[in-house]
């Protein structure tokens, strides 16, 4: 009841912590501040989390699925947000898994490295997407993409839609922290 009183005043858990002389909140208590269910699983779930909530609370897993129809065909997107990683699948007109890539910020300058994990030997459709997602989110990303090769317009279209959804979901870093998108 003590914590509820402070939360209702808009002070948040930090204020409640300060009120009783604690420096930090044990993980078990932080769960109370979570705004969305800890394990989300639904079709087309839109989570309007602000980044602060997911920054220091274990949000479990959020899965977002959506499709977009365009002149070039139907693009399907699946985004799985884990605490420290994002997995994305992009399907073009089918539900084939496609090629798998991993990208991550690497030291010393937080430049992003990308590698192909499955498939994609000479055909790198999707590796650019993985690389730019890692840049925008600052997280490790795993991308599976079955866009046919030699389709740069389709690839750019898919990336644009995916990034827009990531921004809507709050998974991208704000530009004000000085890193370029």
């Amino acid at each position, binding site marked *: 009841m003590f914590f509820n009183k402070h939360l209702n005043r808009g002070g948040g858990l930090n204020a409640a912590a300060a009120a009783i002389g604690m420096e930090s909140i044990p993980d078990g208590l932080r769960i109370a501040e979570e705004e969305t269910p800890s*394990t989300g699983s639904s079709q087309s779930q839109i989570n309007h989390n602000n980044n602060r909530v997911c920054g220091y609370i*274990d949000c479990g897993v959020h899965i977002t699925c*959506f499709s*977009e*129809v365009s002149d070039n065909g139907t693009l*399907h997107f699946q985004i799985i947000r*884990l605490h420290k990683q994002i997995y994305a699948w992009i399907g073009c007109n*089918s*539900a084939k898994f496609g090629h798998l890539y991993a990208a991550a910020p690497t030291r010393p300058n937080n430049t992003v490295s990308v590698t192909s994990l499955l498939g994609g030997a000479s055909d790198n459709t999707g590796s650019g997407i993985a690389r730019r997602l890692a840049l925008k989110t600052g997280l490790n990303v*795993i991308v599976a993409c079955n866009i046919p090769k030699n389709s740069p317009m389709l690839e750019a279209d898919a990336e644009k839609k995916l990034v827009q959804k990531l921004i809507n979901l709050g998974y991208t870093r704000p530009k004000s922290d000085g890193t370029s998108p």
Partner: protein
Amino acid sequence: MDSSLSGQAFPVRHKNLSVDIKGHKTDIILCSYDDHFLVIATQIGSMGTILHARKEEGVSIHPTFNVSVVFGKRDEPMLVACARQLIEHMSNSGSSRPLVLALGLRDHSVVQSQ
């Protein structure tokens, strides 16, 4: 103009559950694509080690399987054994689809895969 697909189910089925294994919260995600299964089991907030397991085409009665680590720890035999067990189970249940298995586990001494 682009529009969202309406009236059609998303082509990839997925299932998401959370279980407690030896005190560690484990998130399990199962996804079914046209030509692959994806299974993620994580206790560490990321996919961890990613393995690829597939049934080999062959003429003998008993199928053989190829399991390899594509990302992450390559020196943990229990992870490979886990993937091998899973792909054999799937094959015995009638599915020939390859498996992409992501295991992000805290403790590699005993791997609970089922």
